[in-house]
Structures are given as C-alpha cells and as structure tokens.
C-alpha cells in the first residue's frame, strides 16, 4: 500500500499456515455440518430410533474431528508440546476458545456414537451397560448441547482466520458464515455417502430425500455468501482491491473457478439434471456428493493460500 514509509520484506518466507490447516478446516466443517444436519432432521421429525443418517452422522463427526486433530497437531512446529494448549487458556484468542469448545465437542461426538450403537455397545461390553443407560437418560439434553457445539465448531474455524488483519480476503465478517454454510454442504454430502455406502440406506427413503432437498438451498446460500465476499472486496478500499486479485490472478484463482465454481457448484447441478438411468444413478449419486466435498476442500485451500498470498 502507498504509505509514507514502509518495508517490503516481512519475515514469512512463503506463507505461514499451509494445507494441513485447510484440511483441518474441511474436516471440522464436515464434522460440525454432519452433526447439525442429522440432529436437525432428528429434532424436526421427533425420531427416537437410531436412523441410518444418525448413525452415519455420529461416526462421520467423531472420525473427521479426530483426523482434524491429527492435522492440527501435525502442523505444529513443537508437536510434543501440544499439551500446553490444553492447560493454558487465553480467552482473547479464538484458537483457545476453539480448543475449549473442542474439549466439549469431541467427547460429545463420542457419546453420540455410543447412542447410535447403544445396543451393540451394551451387548459387547456388558460392564458398560449401566453407564450407557445413565447417558441415555440425558440423551435429549446432550444432543441439544452437541447441536449447539456443532455450530460453534463450524463458526469458530471462520473466526479463527477472520481475525488476521494482514489478509483482507480473510479479515471479513462474512467468513464465519461462509464456513458454517460450506460445512453444512460438505457434512450433508458426507452423510449421503456414508448412509448409503455403509448402512445401505435407500436413496429414496424420507431422510435421504430431506438430505437431497436441503442441498440446494445450502448451495444457493453458499454462492450468495461468496458473491457478497467478492462484491464487498470489489467495492472496498485499497486493501480490498489487493485481495480481489486473488479471484483473477495466480494459480489459486484457477482453484477458485475450476475447483469451487465448476466442481463444487456447476457439476452437481448438471449431474442432477442429466438423464438418470438405473445403472448410472448410483455412480451419479456418489460423484455428486464427492463434488460437493471437493468443492469445499478447494474453498478452504483457496481461502488459506490465496488469502495469505494477497496481503497488505
């Protein structure tokens, strides 16, 4: 920027945060998104049985968030020191708030897995039956809290990077909202794949129909938020214009237009309207869901890499 006096050579050689963070942001989004969607369906339909969608959601949420933790710890330069973050808290720091939220969220996703497979757990580990029964008494409350923390996990990942003032693409108020909605998109897609692949849920069951229906408004809101981000940068000040270049210059703009727009948005729409023959419908179902997840991965990569490339 045009300042009276400044320097051009900062100390960061390429970029500070790299792909493990992008992958974590994706995994946290899938985890939170899957839980939010599955619990909303459960609350909305007053379900009491363990549906395939619920079972999928609990497994997806638990496994993805644990993989996310591996990414986070792996990205530390002093990974063996990571326990320091568990005992020291600074509630001015979004990361610290996130760790506190994860400490509640991760055990709750595990409890959800126990709920989903309660009969199996009681049968195989009979000595745990009393604990499982005790937890089942508080099922509604625990699921309510889990739902809340699902939203917190999705949103905090957005706030985590929106506080970085040096990067105008990241330092925007829309980012947490964009991360929640794209988390829902990836979470829904992961639920579709899991429910069909592992639990053999019929694609035309009423739960799956809901999943399929909510995909479109979620995608519409996601596109809306991206458009809002673009327009706010384009009409913004000099910093905004620097960040706007991320959409038009460099290899990350390709990731945006090919990965996010074409694969993430256009391809699922085209696949949905293409002719559905019985043999193809399975593969189209999987490809369409995978496209959503790849699109969200590209979004996270684009935000992390392009965001840090175009700095002020």
């Amino acid at each position, binding site marked *: *920027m045009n*300042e*009276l*006096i*400044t*320097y*051009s*050579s*900062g*100390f*960061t050689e390429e970029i*500070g*945060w790299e792909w493990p963070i992008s992958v974590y942001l994706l995994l946290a989004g899938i985890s939170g998104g899957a839980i939010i969607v599955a619990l909303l369906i459960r609350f909305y339909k007053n379900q009491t049985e363990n549906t395939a969608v619920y079972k999928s959601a609990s497994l997806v949420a638990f496994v993805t968030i644990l993989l996310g933790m591996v990414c986070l710890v792996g*990205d*530390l*330069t*002093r*990974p063996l*020191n*990571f326990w*320091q*973050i568990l005992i*020291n*808290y*600074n509630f*001015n*720091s*979004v*990361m*610290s708030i996130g*760790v506190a939220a994860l400490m509640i969220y991760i055990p709750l996703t595990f409890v959800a897995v126990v709920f989903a497979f309660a009969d199996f757990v009681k049968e195989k580990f009979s000595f745990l039956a009393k604990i499982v029964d005790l937890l089942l008494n508080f099922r509604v409350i625990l699921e309510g809290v889990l739902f809340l923390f699902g939203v917190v996990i999705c949103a905090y990942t957005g706030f985590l*990077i929106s*506080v*970085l*003032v*040096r*990067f105008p693409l990241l330092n925007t108020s829309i980012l947490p909202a964009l991360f929640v909605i794209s988390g829902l998109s990836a979470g829904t897609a992961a639920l579709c794949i899991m429910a069909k692949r592992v639990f053999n849920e019929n694609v035309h069951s009423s739960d799956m129909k809901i999943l399929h229906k909510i995909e479109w408004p979620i995608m519409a809101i996601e596109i809306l938020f991206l458009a809002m981000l673009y327009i706010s940068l384009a009409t913004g000040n000099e910093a905004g214009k620097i960040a706007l270049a991320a959409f038009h210059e460099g290899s990350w703009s390709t990731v945006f237009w090919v990965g996010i727009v074409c694969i993430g948005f256009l391809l699922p729409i085209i696949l949905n309207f293409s002719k559905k023959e019985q043999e193809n419908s399975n593969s189209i179902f999987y490809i369409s869901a995978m496209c959503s997840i790849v699109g969200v991965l590209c979004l996270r990569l684009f935000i992390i890499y392009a965001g*840090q490339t175009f*700095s002020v």
Partner: protein
Amino acid sequence: MSSSKENNRRNFIKGIGLGSLFLGSVQYGLNANTNKENKKPHYAMIYDQNKCVGCSDCEIACQEINLVPKNQHRLYVEDQTKPDDLQHKKYMRVSCQQCVDSPCTEVCPTGACHKDSITDIVTMDIDKCIGCKYCIVACPYDVRFINERTNAAENCNFCLNTNFAKGKDPACVESCKYDALVFGDLNDETAYINKILDVKDAVRLKPGFGTKPSLRYIPKLKTGVYDE
C-alpha cells in the same frame, strides 16, 4: 420528643460528614494507586532513516547476543535504494514494532507470546510455545518467525533477556556507530528518546492497523543536496 428528633438530625448530618470524609479519602487512595500504575514504563525505539548507512552492524550484534540462527533475523535492514539512483542510499529497519495493542499476544492460545509484567515489552515464553504460528499470521507487520534452533516463535523483545537484563541498551542500539537508533522509556520525561521526539517528526508504520506500535521512524523525505 422534639429534642430527640433534633438529635436524630444532628447524628444524620454527622454521619454524612464522616461518611463523605471516609469515601473521599478512599477515592484519593485509589487515585494515588492508579497514578503509580500509570508510571509503568513504556519502552520504545527510534530508527532514524537519515542516519542509517546500512552497515548491518545491528543485525550482526543482534544475532550474536540473542543466539539467533545464522540465516534468520529478529532484526533486518532492508536496502530501499532505487537501482536507477544509487547515490541516494535509503535503508529501513524491519523488526518487531512492539505494539501497545499487540495482536500476537491477543491470539496466542497458551500465553507463550505475552507482555512482560514489569516492562510491558512483548516477549516469548519459549517453554509454553507449541508452534501453532497463529502469532506469525496475526502480526500486521510480518516480523515474527519460528526460530530454527528452538522451533518456537520469536520476535525482537528489545534484548529483554540479554542486554536489557544486564541494564544495557539493546544490542542493535549499542552497536550502531551512527546513532541511528535510540532506545528509552517514553514515560520518563527526562529520557533522551523524549527529547528527540519533541523536536523531530517521527512516524509509526501502518498506523491504520490501530495497534499503536512503539517503534518510531524518522523518515528520509528530502532527496538531499550533493555535489557532483
């Protein structure tokens, strides 16, 4: 009956008088305390672009004193001389700006990056650092780095653990042969740094970020007069 009423009133007025005296002195005491707290030092540094010749003595002294690995820097002097005008030399100090509202200490999840309780200088507790790099991406001035030897994040802390602890000026200030660097306490009215700031125009870098850096730069504005 009437005299007891009178007494009541008198006691009431007495009570108010004594109460306000008490509250007043408490208030005074509290004020005296806050005044003392305000006397906390505010250490700052001036870099005079007109005096710096780019000899990089400061860089070398900093690396030696603070045991910074060879290819890394807490402090770096950028050569801003234009290639088509080599006669007008211009240099620029790149280092931690020691912000008053420092984003690095705000975002650090463990409190490893913190303000020293006595001096208010932004510094590191290496043992607490997990290397998440949040402080590095949060710094508006991009002047923090992961030390290759300790794997912990680091910044210029005015030699807090080295020279400052021994009562000396920071290594860069000590080594500068051209008096381009001045270090001192802004809250000490008699300090040399305040006398310079009284008479010279000094600016902060990127004030728009609103982090109130403690580093002041005296910019080289005129092109200079010289014989050919």
